[in-house]
């Protein structure tokens, strides 16, 4: 049941990502909702589950897009795994820590994405990739933490899956 709700959340995040998120873009930069969702989830649970859900949500995203299947799956697996590792080491109740972890895990996930693009012979100079995509998207995604983290954490706690 819990897995079903998570899957539903991932699908909602995906649908919002294709449509509504474009309207809150600042100078073209938009947050990555699926990335946010799996990082917070990984952070609240553990590295293994973070990686598993990162991979699953990423794969769903890839199937939705329909090409380069696996690109988001690997990128989000990395982010979810790292967020899970951080979760086991840091104090989970602090929103600031959650925001910093989101920022760093998102940067790591997007760097992996960038490397996979190189593997696909899609070349973007690193200077542009980092300053125009990786950093701004990660910062925007981390900015969602103060707004949504508490709600997500409460959802996880109420169901007794994690003692916050």
């Amino acid at each position, binding site marked *: 049941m819990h897995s079903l709700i998570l899957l539903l959340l991932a699908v909602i995040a*995906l*649908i919002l*990502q*294709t*449509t*509504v998120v*474009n*309207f*809150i*873009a600042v*100078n*073209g*930069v*938009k947050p*990555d909702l*699926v990335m946010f969702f799996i990082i917070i989830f990984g952070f609240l649970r553990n590295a293994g589950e973070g990686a598993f859900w990162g*991979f699953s949500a990423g794969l769903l*995203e890839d199937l*939705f*897009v*329909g*090409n*380069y*299947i*696996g*690109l*988001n*799956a*690997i990128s989000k697996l990395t982010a979810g795994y790292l967020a899970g590792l951080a979760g086991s080491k840091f104090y989970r109740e602090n929103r600031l820590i959650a925001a910093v972890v989101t920022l760093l895990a998102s940067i790591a996930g997007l760097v992996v*994405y960038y490397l*996979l*693009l190189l*593997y*696909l012979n*899609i*070349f*973007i*100079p690193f200077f*542009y*990739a980092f300053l*125009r*995509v990786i950093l701004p*998207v990660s910062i925007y995604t981390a900015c969602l933490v103060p707004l949504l983290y508490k709600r997500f954490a409460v959802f996880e706690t109420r169901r007794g899956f994690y003692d916050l």
Partner: protein
Amino acid sequence: MKRLFFLSILIVFVLVSIRFTSPEKAIPVKENLKDVFLPVQIGLASLGRQVYEWVSAPVLFYRTARHSRELEQEVAELESRITQLTEVKLENERLSRLLGYSQSAAGQYEFITASVVGRDLGSWFGTVTLNKGTNSGIKKDMAVLTPDGLVGRIMFVSDYTSEVLLITDPRSGVSTLIQESRTPGIVEGIAGDSGLVRMIHLPSDALVDEGQTVVTSGLGSIFPKSIPVGRVIAIRRESAGLFKSAELRPFADLNRLEEVLVIKRVLP
């Protein structure tokens, strides 16, 4: 150890899968799926637009008032320029007829109008989905523009939708030239959401200045000639030293596309 083995197998498998599902080897299932999702996407896109308009209304109102004053002045200036240009145009037509010179003038196209109903999920690629497809006469590689400038070209078509590869996508390349100096170069995308493109392969002695206009060159048979692409905002020297590149801001607002024009054919 067993988990590590499993993970490496998975990653190798996925790496192969990424390669084999690149758009050049498009899967037919995808097109049909897009048609199924179309009504949902249209609904959500209009909902998003309404929320955006509602939230931004006060700011927009203030800006519009200021903007309209500026526009009034501009209109007056432009009207006088139109008169001058009409003169030049008539003269040009007379001289062309004298020389027996015929050229398909820019702007004479047959269009298909389509609405943007979806955008690429991530920030790297720049693609948008249109609400029209093969049934409306859209074909692969048709050029897409707005009245402001070039948008991109059609990458995939299904019966009721089509996907546009924007000029800001890193996979896009457009043969262009600088309008003032006629220096040729290729305009390629940086990343979908960056809102910028780069004009590369400019010889290091080329006369390029900030503020210059870049238009399509008509080479390569996809994009017709003389469609405005963007304005030069910065110039960089390439590390190899032989070339320089220019950063451009596209004329078309690619992050807020709503309606676009697909060129069906160029009128003779």
